[in-house]
Every structure is written in structure tokens, then in C-alpha cells.
């Protein structure tokens, strides 16, 4: 790789060609402040905070968007640069509500940090905070355009990363505001509720719909049996909210915390992930054997499901009818568990803790989400909301002792836990499908080909001589290529490129979910991923079909995978939905 020699604040720097001034400066210990730039996205160069002086340029250049050039001489900090940055920051603050005390991002806001670093004590300019109503139309995300700093991250995330094009800038000049394209409500837009906009927002302009109050109310309500489940990816991320390293595996602490919060039974979504594998794995084996459409496409991710129903309804038949683990656990808690524990299901309130904003949408997405006769999941909260609840309860999370999950919907295998990362559902399914096809267990359960951050991973798996072609895609924008590939083969009547496809809407899978603690970068995603694989590796049981609690539920309640009862409780349907409701 060719290297560029340049100078930053008089310090000689040698960096690979294409490195931005921002990154080159970081390498020599110089932090250039920034607001709109985010590692996941191409530099949008909007805010004007990261400007630097470059010898020979009359204007200041944006460090985020300018690649270093040979012999470039950069000044990142001098009185003039700092004054310009401060003025820009003061201007941004002059149009910001500055009501930090009532903001969900207080203490975790990039604008607040900048204001603190610059020592802003008053705003010299006329205050002109806009008055724009919030968009609360979806069950997942709230848009508060009043707090928007027009950094453009959400728009780039929605359009470039996710290929959804729900968000856009509306109007221009100082009337510019963030809104769904065509100025409809978010609910009427193609939004898939993935919440990546909220995860990338530097301020409190986009945030998850807060359901913590409903959860508190359920906990304190007399006569209610409040059960809770935690998703795989929560256990490797919630620690970040308490100053722990990203990826720290804190399953036992979460169980303890949930108990102290007052939940009556603590279950684990990983258990239901194992159940999903039995259903979906059996479904795959059936379709692979000639009964039903191929490729089979995973459906655990509600944003992906929503995307398919809106953007690719020609794939409805390809979707696994198996519900997501969240929903499976919901229905099983109000049927099987209720029956075994002798509790009236009407008195059970089921709460899920998810890394995801879309799960809030999933809990009412179709009639099948009421399979128990009640709403199977009553409320879904994100990892971020759980962290808030733990803080509100005065629980010193990092010093909590570990504890165990409750039976009978708690025990899980390594296959269940890897649902939280891209490739995990596929890998878990393959571990069991291999058994279902060959009646033999794998010697080596790891499938390296499906792991990692590449946008689309594909492989051919040898199942005792039978070739299974698979593909794994994550980050919604990467999926279109796979869809196009299949459509092309279909149109030409050629052999399908894949038999089995896994899709997760968020980058890195659920560990990078829209409801996870803020600040995710690929580095942090990698740490969380390592946490998940550690959980798998230290599991004694690593294949879903080895989970004794799963075996028991079939034996005692469901019969066999894909049985009539299993279908009634654990499967769902899909429907074509319009991109725009208006």
C-alpha cells in the first residue's frame, strides 16, 4: 500500500493513501472534534466542527472528508481554528432546545460533550429553537426534529446502509428538517423500524419509544405474574452502560438484576432460539427434501421481515414460517409455562429485553402474535431501556453476583446464543440440520464461513455428500444483491444460487442492533461478537437439539417439530405491504 508523508501540527505523519486528516491526526495523538462524522458512514461533511487549516487553502477543510496528500501541512488547533469551531458550535446550540435535563441522551450526547469540551457557558447568538411536532407514529422509534442537528447520519444510515429510504431532509435553508421522505409519518413510510437511525443519532433527535414506564407499572401491579426474557445480544452489550468493556458477557448479572427489579420469572430468549432451530431446521430439511419453496430464508429479524413484505413480496413463500425466538418464548410462557406452573395466562405479563427497536413492532405485527389467546409479548424494551431501569432501581450492576435463569424456559445451548450475531442463526441451523438429515452429530460445530463482517457471506456446506448452498447477509443494504441474484436465476430458470439464506437487518447482526447502547463501531461490534462466541464455546451443549428443556417441551406439550400444535403456536404468515400507506 502506498504511504503518504505529511505533517500535522508540525509532527511528521506517514499514513496509507486515502487516510483522512481526522484519522491521520488520531494516529499522532491529536483529537479533532467532530459532530456529524460517524465511522460507519461516508463523510457527509455537514457540521463544520472538524475544520482544519491546510497550508495553501484559503478556506478551512473538513478533516473528516479530506484525505491527506503528499507534503500536506495541516494545523488542527490554533486560536483561529478553535474560534471558528466554537462559533459553529454556538450556532448549532442556538437552534437546539438545550433542555438536556429532560433528554434521553443526557450524559450520553455528542453535542453535550462538545459543549462541555469547548467550555460553552452562554450562547452569544439569538436563540431560535424550532417548534416541530414529534413523530410517534411507529411503536418503535420517535422522531424529535427539534433536537436534530442535521448531521445527516440517520438519512445516510436509512438510505445508504439500509437501502430503505424512509428518512430524508425536507425543506431547505434554516427550515431544513428531518422527516420521512414526502413528509408522511414514519408509520406511513417504508421504515422497517430497525432503529439504526436512533443508534447513530448523536443527540436526542431519534430514540426508541420508551416502554419502561409500562414495565414498571406491570411489575407493581397486584396479582400480575411478570416474566421477562433477554435476547442473546443483550448479554454482551448492556455492561457498556455501566462502564464495562464492550463484549463483556454478563448473563448472570442480568438475571440477578432482573430479579432485583422485581420480575417473577426470568427466562432466556436463547432457549426459544433453540426451539426456533428445531422448527426452522425441520422446515429446511423438509423443503430441501422437495416439499416447499427454496431457498428458505430466515425470519427471526422483524425488520427484515418488514423489508421483505414491502420491498420483495415475491419472496413471501421463501420465508421460514417459524416465529422469531422472542415470539416463541412469548407464546410458550402463556401456554406451556402457564399450564405447568398453574398460573392463569391472563395474569401473566410477558416482557422482552431486546437489542432491537423493531421487536416493539413485532409484538403486534399480525394475528399470530396473539397465538396464546392473549398478546404473547406485552412489552418489549431495548438494551438501553433495561440499562435505564437498572440505574433507576439503584442497582450497582457491575458488582452484582451472577445467578441462574429460571426453568422451564431458560436453559440454552451455544447454538441459541449465537443467534445474536450475523451468521449465527445459519450456523445454529446447520448444526441441527446436519443431525436431522444424517442422524449424526457434527464433530466440528463451528462454521467459519458464515462468521465475520463481510456484507454477504456464502458457502457450500457438505452434508455427508449432499451440497447445501448458503448465504448470510447483514446490514439491510447488503441484502439487495442476494435478492437480485435469486430473482435473476428465477427469471432465467437457472438453478438457484442458494438453498438457505440468513438475513439480519443490522450491521453485525443483533449485537449491532438499533436498541443497543450508543456508540457502536465495527471495533465494538467485534468485541460484542467475541462475547457471543465465548458464550457458545463455554457452553457444554452446543446444538439446539441437545437442549433437554427443548426435548421436554416437545415431549410434554408440542409433540414433534412442525406438528399441528407447533404450527398453531410457533408459526406465522406474511403479507405484501405497501411501501407508502399514503
Amino acid at each position, binding site marked *: 500500500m502506498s504511504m503518504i508523508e505529511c505533517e500535522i501540527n508540525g509532527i511528521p505523519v506517514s499514513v496509507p493513501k486515502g487516510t483522512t486528516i481526522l484519522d491521520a491526526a488520531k494516529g499522532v495523538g491529536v483529537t479533532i472534534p467532530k459532530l456529524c462524522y460517524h465511522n460507519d458512514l461516508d*463523510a*457527509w*461533511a*455537514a*457540521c*463544520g*466542527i472538524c*475544520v482544519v487549516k491546510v497550508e495553501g487553502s484559503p*478556506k*478551512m*477543510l*473538513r478533516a473528516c*472528508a*479530506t*484525505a491527506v496528500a503528499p507534503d500536506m501541512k495541516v494545523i488542527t488547533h490554533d486560536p*483561529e481554528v478553535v*474560534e*471558528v*469551531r466554537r*462559533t*459553529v458550535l454556538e*450556532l*448549532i446550540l*442556538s*437552534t437546539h432546545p438545550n433542555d438536556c435535563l429532560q433528554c434521553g441522551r443526557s450524559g450520553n450526547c455528542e453535542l453535550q460533550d462538545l459543549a462541555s469540551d469547548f467550555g460553552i457557558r452562554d450562547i*452569544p*447568538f*439569538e436563540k*431560535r429553537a424550532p417548534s416541530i411536532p414529534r413523530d410517534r407514529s411507529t411503536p418503535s422509534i420517535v422522531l424529535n426534529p427539534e433536537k436534530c*442537528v*442535521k448531521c*445527516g447520519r440517520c438519512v445516510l444510515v436509512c438510505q445508504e446502509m439500509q437501502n430503505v429510504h424512509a428518512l*430524508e*431532509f425536507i*425543506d*431547505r*435553508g*434554516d*427550515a*431544513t428538517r428531518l422527516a420521512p421522505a414526502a413528509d408522511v409519518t414514519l408509520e406511513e413510510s417504508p421504515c422497517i423500524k430497525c432503529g439504526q437511525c436512533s443508534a447513530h443519532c448523536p443527540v436526542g433527535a431519534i430514540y426508541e419509544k420508551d416502554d419502561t414506564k409500562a414495565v414498571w407499572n406491570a411489575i407493581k401491579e397486584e396479582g400480575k405474574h411478570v416474566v421477562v426474557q433477554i435476547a442473546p445480544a443483550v448479554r454482551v452489550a448492556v455492561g457498556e452502560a455501566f462502564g464495562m468493556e464492550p463484549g463483556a458477557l454478563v448473563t448472570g448479572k442480568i438475571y440477578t438484576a432482573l430479579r432485583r427489579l422485581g420480575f417473577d420469572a426470568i427466562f432466556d430468549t436463547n432457549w426459544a432460539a433453540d426451539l426456533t432451530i428445531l422448527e426452522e431446521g425441520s422446515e429446511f430439511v423438509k423443503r430441501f427434501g422437495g416439499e416447499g419453496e427454496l431457498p428458505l430464508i430466515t425470519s427471526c429479524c422483524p425488520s427484515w421481515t418488514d423489508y421483505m413484505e414491502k420491498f420483495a413480496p415475491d419472496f413471501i413463500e421463501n420465508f421460514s414460517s417459524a416465529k422469531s425466538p422472542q415470539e416463541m418464548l412469548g407464546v410458550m410462557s402463556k401456554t406451556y409455562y402457564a399450564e405447568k406452573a398453574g398460573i392463569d395466562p391472563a395474569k401473566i405479563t410477558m416482557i422482552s429485553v431486546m437489542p432491537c427497536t423493531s421487536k416493539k413492532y413485532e409484538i403486534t405485527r399480525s394475528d399470530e402474535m396473539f397465538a396464546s389467546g392473549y398478546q404473547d409479548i406485552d412489552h418489549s424494551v431495548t438494551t438501553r431501556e433495561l440499562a435505564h431501569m437498572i440505574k433507576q432501581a439503584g442497582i450497582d450492576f457491575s458488582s452484582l453476583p451472577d445467578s441462574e435463569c429460571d426453568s422451564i424456559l431458560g436453559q440454552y445451548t451455544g447454538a441459541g446464543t449465537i443467534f445474536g450475531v450475523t451468521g449465527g442463526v445459519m450456523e445454529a441451523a446447520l448444526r441441527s440440520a446436519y443431525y436431522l438429515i444424517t442422524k449424526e452429530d457434527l464433530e466440528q460445530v463451528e462454521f467459519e464461513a458464515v462468521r465475520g463482517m463481510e456484507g454477504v457471506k456464502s458457502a457450500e456446506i457438505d452434508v455427508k455428500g449432499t451440497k447445501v448452498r448458503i448465504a448470510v447477509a447483514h446490514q439491510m443494504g447488503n441484502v439487495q444483491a442476494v435478492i437480485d441474484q435469486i430473482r435473476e436465476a428465477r427469471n432465467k430458470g437457472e438453478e438457484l444460487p442458494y438453498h438457505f439464506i440468513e438475513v439480519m437487518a443490522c450491521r453485525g447482526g443483533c449485537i449491532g442492533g438499533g436498541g443497543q447502547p450508543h456508540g457502536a463501531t465495527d471495533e465494538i461490534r467485534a468485541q460484542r461478537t467475541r462475547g457471543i462466541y465465548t458464550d457458545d464455546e463455554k457452553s457444554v451443549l452446543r446444538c439446539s437439539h441437545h437442549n433437554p428443556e427443548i426435548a421436554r417441551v416437545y415431549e410434554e406439550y408440542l409433540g414433534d417439530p412442525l406438528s399441528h400444535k407447533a404450527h398453531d403456536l410457533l408459526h406465522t404468515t406474511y403479507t405484501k405491504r405497501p411501501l407508502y400507506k399514503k
Partner: protein
Amino acid sequence: MAKMTLEELRKLRETKKTEMARHNGETMRIIVGTGTCGIAAGAMETLDAFRDELESHGLEKNTAITQTSCMGLCFSEPTVEVAVPGMPNTIYGNVDGRAAHRIVKEHLIDKAVVADHVFEKPAADIIDGEDGAPRKQKRIVLRNCGVINPELIDEYIARDGYAALEKVVFEMSADDVIDELTKSGLRGRGGAGFPAGLKWGFTKDVDSDEKYIVCNADEGDPGAYMDRSTAEGDPHSVLEAMAIAGRTVGASQGYIYIRAEYPLAIDRLNNAIAQAHGHGLLGDNILGSDFGFDIELRLGAGAFVCGEETALLASIEGKRGMPIPRPPFPAVKGLWGKPTVINNVETWANIPMIIHKGSAWFSGIGTETTKGTKVFALTGKINNSGLIEVPMGTTLREIIYDIGGGIKDGKKFKAAQTGGPSGGVITEEFLDTPIDYESLQGIGSMMGSGGMIVMDEDDCMIDVTKFYLEFSVDESCGKCAPCRIGGRTCYNILDKISKGQGSLEDLEQLKVLAQAMRKASLCGLGQTAPNPIMSSMKYFEDEYLAHINDKKCPAGKCKDLLSYTIIEDQCVGCTACARVCPVHCISGEVKEAHVINQSQCIKCGQCFDKCKFDAILKG
């Protein structure tokens, strides 16, 4: 007509030249300017009037009536050129039906010029005269505007049209063209003045499967209409130049990005493209060669920021028109990520002539750093408002007094603004500055794309600055914070000052804001938006101070600082003021001094205008 070969084109040119020369010598001709401005002033009615008049005098057979585009004499539209063998060609202005009647009778029949409709200046400056007198104007870009019928490709061809393309396709290498362009010294006329040859060279040198040529016809400065007139009056000059660029850098597709508010220019460009196709001058195998080039129009919705090249390209791509950081420059990574040559209409219109007449000819015109000519749209408090083209190096004084005929109503010149909302004011002391990119920048203004607005003593500089800021604020795309918020904040401060609510601290704040906007805005719009403020604060500080300290607007423009009072001793009690007052706030008995109720007065000034006894004091 079928697609032509090189020989056929040359033959057509010669035939057409002879035909037109014969016309010029033998036939009476009436040429009506039907550009947008002419049509708005009634040129189509004038055209009909001439047809009727000729018919009623039985002259329709031996008189040719043709249309041409804008001659640049906007203050006297509709304009008509009359050519009668044996008489000097004459340009008439303000030609309505009555004037048409007189022109036919007096000029065509009686062979006598209709003196009260003729312009000595600037008409004499732009018409091909035979007296050898030095002309203030030199028309390269506008060479065909007001001369040919822009809807007839053959007339363009007869005036050496497509001769440059011929040369480029059959005689010159790509390097020859770039060399020629570089030697000519042509700089982009969009405002920044980047050397055109250098720009083309960048694109040529990039290895890419596809490249694009783009014409920026998204002219948007207040008071600027150079590009509209050029596109309306000589559309082929743009098409020919774009094809030359395509051949040179290796592109086969061009786009003209033009604002939808220019319907006539759009029609004429589309018509020209179709005719060029018909002649084999666009499309595959141009003039039988292996070179193919096509051009399509893309209409903009009139966002000023789309004149910024990266925003323009985004708009062509169907995205919201917002600028992106440069580098990479479009020359290397432009439309759909491909190398793209983008120039504005005026730059393009220069190119065929440079290739045809040679770089030495072109570089012989202008100043040391800036070659060629510049088209200005001269507007404001000037007698002869209109479109002019002068050699670089012409002084502002020559433009305003010699070509523009001086300030209207004999008022005093105060300042001229070039560069529109991006520029600054030029005051009396700099009137003798020879105009080029560097000299204008040196005095705190800029060349800009060619708007030139002249202000007189009645103009308030705070009011004018506010006007420009309001424009920039309205047109900001909203992407970057310094421009989006800074612009509005500056405007509000100016507004405060104009209402007498400003403080000296506000002036300091304006300086701080201007610095942040200039340094940290993403594109030229935001970087230059504070220029009118800094420039007016520099040259007219006393006016700012008068508004702030004395709560007075010396020009009497800022309504909030204005009051009308009746001088008791001078009022004769004629009641004229009271009768004209729209809010009935003037009272008094007949033949007794009147009084204005200040709390109700809306400062419309009607009483002041009405009073015959100078009894009303404005200030």
C-alpha cells in the same frame, strides 16, 4: 435534411454565407428581438404589427421579417433592427405597434430614420459598423445573439458555426485542443475563474469507461441573465463546445442542467439539439467520423445552490441538490462517480471561437491574468440596463458611464455590486479598476457570473446587504451548520440594525459570524454569503453607525427609521397630503398647517410626493 458529411457541411456553410450576404445587400430586413425580455415587453405583438404594416403597404414580398434573440438592450425592449440597402443598419427601441407603423412608412418607404426611436448608444457599440470607430463592447460570447435566428441551425453554420468542431474531429488531437485552450487563458466564467484547459486536462487524463460533459445553465444570481440570453440567442454555440469537449476528453454524453424557469431557452436548446441531430452534428458518427456525442437537458427546480457543481451533479442524479466536499473534484469524480467536465454557458460559448480563431487571438484580448471578454447583466439605477459584453480590463467607469449611460435621473453613483449575493460593493474610488478576477477580489468583490447592479444615493447599504443575505438564507440548502444557521443569524442582526435596534456589539458579532461562515461553510454559497456584509461594513461603516447610534437611515430607505413631519411654516393647508394619506393620519383645517399622527403613519411617503410646497420633511 439527412446527416451530413464534412464536405456537405462546408458546402452548406458557403451557400448560406453567400445567401445571407446577398440578403444583406439586396433585401430590406426587419429583425425583431424575441428573447424572453423582448417577448415580455410585447415583441410578438410588434412582430404582428410589422407583418400587418408590410402587407398594407404591399411590401411583404421584398421585405424579410425575421426573429432574433436578445440584443442586450433590455431598457428599450422590444428592440428591432432594420436593414435597408443603401442605409446604415439601425436599431430601434421601444417599438410598439405605432412605432412599427412609422418605421415601415418612414424608414422603409421614405428612407428616413425614425430618429426618436434610435439609440446612439449602446446600439452603435454592438452593431457591425463601418466607420471604424472604437467600440466599448466586444462580442465573442454574444457574437450571434441578436444577429442570427436561433431557431435555424443554418444561420449558425453560416457564421462559422461547427467549424471548430470540424477542426477538432478531423484535424486536432485531444492534446492539441487542451493545449490551445490552455494557451488561450480561458477561465471558467461561473465565478471562480478556474482555467478551463487545466480542468479538461484532468478529465482527459483519468482512465474511465465513461465520462460526462455538463453545461451549468442553472443561473440564479438576482439580476443575472447572461446565460439565459446566450442559450436563447445562440444555443448551438453551447452544443458545439460540449461536443468539442466530448471529443477531447473522451465522453459521449453531455447534459445541460437548466432551470425550468427558462422555458424559451429550454425550447431553443431542444430545438437546436434536434436540428444538430438532423445535420449529423450530434449523435453517432458525427460528420461521418467515428466520434459520437449526444446531449440531453435536465431541468432544475430553481435552487440557487444547484449552480454549485457538486450539488448540480447530485440533482442530475436525482438526489436532493446538496453539495459534497471537494476534492475529489468532478473533473476526476463527478456525475455518477465518473470524470466530468462541467462549465457554465458563458464558458462553453467562448470555446468554438477560441478553437476557430486560435488561442493567440483570444489571449490578445483582456488583461494579464484574465483573457477574453465578460458578459454582464447591467441593472439597477442605470440608464441603459441590459446585457453587455466587454473585454476584460474594461473599467467599471466605462461600463457604467460609457455603455450604461450613467445613473438614472442624474442621481449620484453610490456603488455597484458584482458577484451578486457572493460579491461585494465597488465604490466610487474604485471605478477605474480594470475588471478581472484578481482586481475585483482585491477590492473585496468578485467577478461572479456577471450580474452587475448599480446603486445610487437613494440606496441604503444596510437594506441592500439585507436583500442579498435574505437571498442566500433562502437559497441555503441547509446542509452545513455555518451557512444554514450563520446566514439566518446574520440576516436577523442586519434586520435589527435596519430597525434601529442594533448595537455596536452586533457589528462585532457579524464579523465573527462572517469569519466562521467563510472558513467553515462547505460550499461557495455559504463561504461567500457574508461578502456583502463585510464589504458594505468596510466601505459604508458610517451608514451602519448612523443606523445604530443615531437611529437614522441616511438614504431614507429603512422605513422603521424614517419619519415624515410637516414643517408648519411651509404648510399652506392645501389638504393634498391629508387626502392622499391611505391611513388618514394627517389632520388639519383647510388653509391651516397640517399635522401627521406619527403613531399611525405607515411611512409610505405618498404625502411627501404629493406636497407641492416642500412642506414635508423626510428623515
